[in-house]
């Protein structure tokens, strides 16, 4: 029981990170019907920017941890958002209205480009960061078996929850969210009502990148090592999460992220670590056989 509880905590933490990345996939798919394969790399860039900001702050002698974390969070979000915006502007917007596969191929190209760009400029070796947030709360301590939630895990889960609430509010209640949903349903009509479709799509990429930056920062702090390649597997997992939850659905992305995180953690905890990815992807296959539109996805509606 204690072991189960501990794995549950670990799984939720990992799932939160996946969920944050998955939202970027699902939002972009919702609005322009394209899988942004470069999104995993956005996450990777987010964690590199966070590391850079951390080192810069350390060099400046700012060491008060909450302040440092806050500054890093903001810096990472702003700069990663800038990357997200530029990528959309340079690689995707010129191809809008082109045939369906064109932006998909560009996205894969963009992903490879970003990986190599970071490899060349930052080096191929892993970048370590010593643990910054240490300690935790011991929930159960029973003769050797300890169930603990670390402060880091608490930060990750709390941040994700807050972001998700803010995000749902933004999509369902604000004017920008309404515009995004309108663009999702009928871009041409939205633009005839005066919605600036290009700007709305740009903002969608910016929002996805912001969340990926938060995930990048959390990943850096949680695992303590990053390299230019982390975006690939995290990206594939998050994409899987988005599909599992039902691509195009925001709560679906979060749910899918949690599901993938939990499956992975429990499989490594009870069976074998080597096969955790196999388990995650097998579940995806099984769910999609019985629920082709994912857990919370709406059934495919023919768009005209």
């Amino acid at each position, binding site marked *: 029981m204690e072991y189960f509880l501990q794995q549950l905590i670990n799984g939720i933490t990992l799932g939160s990170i996946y969920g944050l990345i998955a939202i970027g996939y699902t939002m972009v798919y919702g609005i322009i019907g394209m899988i942004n394969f470069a999104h995993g790399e956005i996450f990777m860039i987010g964690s590199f920017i966070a590391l850079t900001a951390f080192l810069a702050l350390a060099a400046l002698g700012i060491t008060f941890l909450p302040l440092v974390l806050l500054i890093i969070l903001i810096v990472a979000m702003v700069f990663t958002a800038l990357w997200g915006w530029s990528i959309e502007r340079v690689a995707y917007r010129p191809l809008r209205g082109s045939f369906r596969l064109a932006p998909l191929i560009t996205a894969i190209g963009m992903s490879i480009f970003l990986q190599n760009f970071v490899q060349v400029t930052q080096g191929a070796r892993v970048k370590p960061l010593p643990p910054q947030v240490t300690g935790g709360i011991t929930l159960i301590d029973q003769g050797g078996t300890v169930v603990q939630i670390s402060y880091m895990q608490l930060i990750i889960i709390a941040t994700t929850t807050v972001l998700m609430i803010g995000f749902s509010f933004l999509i369902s209640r604000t004017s*920008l969210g*309404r515009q995004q949903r309108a663009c999702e349903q*009928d871009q*041409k009509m939205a*633009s005839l*009502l005066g919605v*600036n479709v290009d700007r709305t799509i740009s903002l969608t990429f910016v929002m996805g990148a912001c969340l990926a930056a938060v995930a990048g920062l959390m990943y850096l702090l949680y695992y303590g090592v990053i390299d230019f390649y982390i975006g690939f597997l995290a990206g594939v997992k998050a994409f899987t999460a988005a599909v599992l939850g039902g691509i195009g659905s925001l709560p679906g992305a979060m749910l899918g992220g949690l599901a993938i995180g939990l499956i992975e953690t429990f499989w490594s905890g009870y069976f074998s670590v080597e096969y955790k990815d196999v388990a995650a992807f097998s579940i995806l296959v099984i769910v999609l056989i019985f629920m082709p539109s994912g857990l919370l996805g709406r059934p495919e509606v023919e768009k005209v």
Partner: protein
Amino acid sequence: MSATTSAWMLDPVLKVEHLTMRFGGLTAIDNLSFEVGRGHITALIGPNGAGKTTVFNCVTGFYKPTEGRISLRRGRGIDDAAVEELTKSGQQFGNVANGSVYLLERMPDFKITEVAGVARTFQNIRLFGGMTVLENLLVAQHNRLMRASGFTFAGLLGLPGYRRAAEAAKDNAITWLKHTNLLDRADDPAADLPYGAQRRLEIARAMCTGPALLCLDEPAAGLNPRESAELNTLLRYIRDEHDVSVLLIEHDMGVVMEISDHIIVLDYGKKISDGTAAEVRNDPKVIAAYLGVDDEEVDAVEEDLAAGLPHATSPSTTTQAQESRS
């Protein structure tokens, strides 16, 4: 067509001049000019394929016309010289004496709604089916809201300025829901409404953008007589109470003849008649276009009319031509 100056020429809200639209080798609209009078309901009619919807698409920025000028004038009594000057300056729009002029053929579609104030509806209904009725009307007011919300940040924080703007938008939406009898359906998904209600909602949504000119593409299509009558009332209300000019395409002659202040008839991309309902109804060219007689026969009819002879259309030719047309 009378040579005297008609009411709509004195102060047009929209003036289309020498509009030509070609698709490859096909000329859909050929050197078309007309005016839409301020505060008028103007109907654009013609047989199928006459180019009516293409005119709409040019006016609302869906298509970039091959040639021609489409100028929207907000403010009373703007003279052509001012429009000419703006055209030469190369700008998309600008302020002139008494108001402002927008050259629609130069503007991207979202700006035509946002800046110039032209709203439209479609032949096939294009509501945001997954959003509620109220949300459909709020999307149409997002420009005001976005500005008030400081591009969302203030909206997220719920600052008073944004709240006030949001309330105002909601009030405006509710006013329109009342006038279209949709208030009790405000929170239902738009796709769940019956057909006639969806048509009314489209008009309400277009009005929520705060237009100077409302373009309706076959608003009465598929409506039953009672709903058509309600539509007439709604359009008159829009013209009289909101000072909005209406340009509509319609096949339902009952609606057209009853509410139009001015009718323009197109056939094969050209204007064949232009005048009040009474003038157009008696124009032999219009009768010919609708009943489909040969050109020679039109000439004959015109000659007959000019000579003051009583004219009888031979039933056999008319029927034949009608069949070949359909």
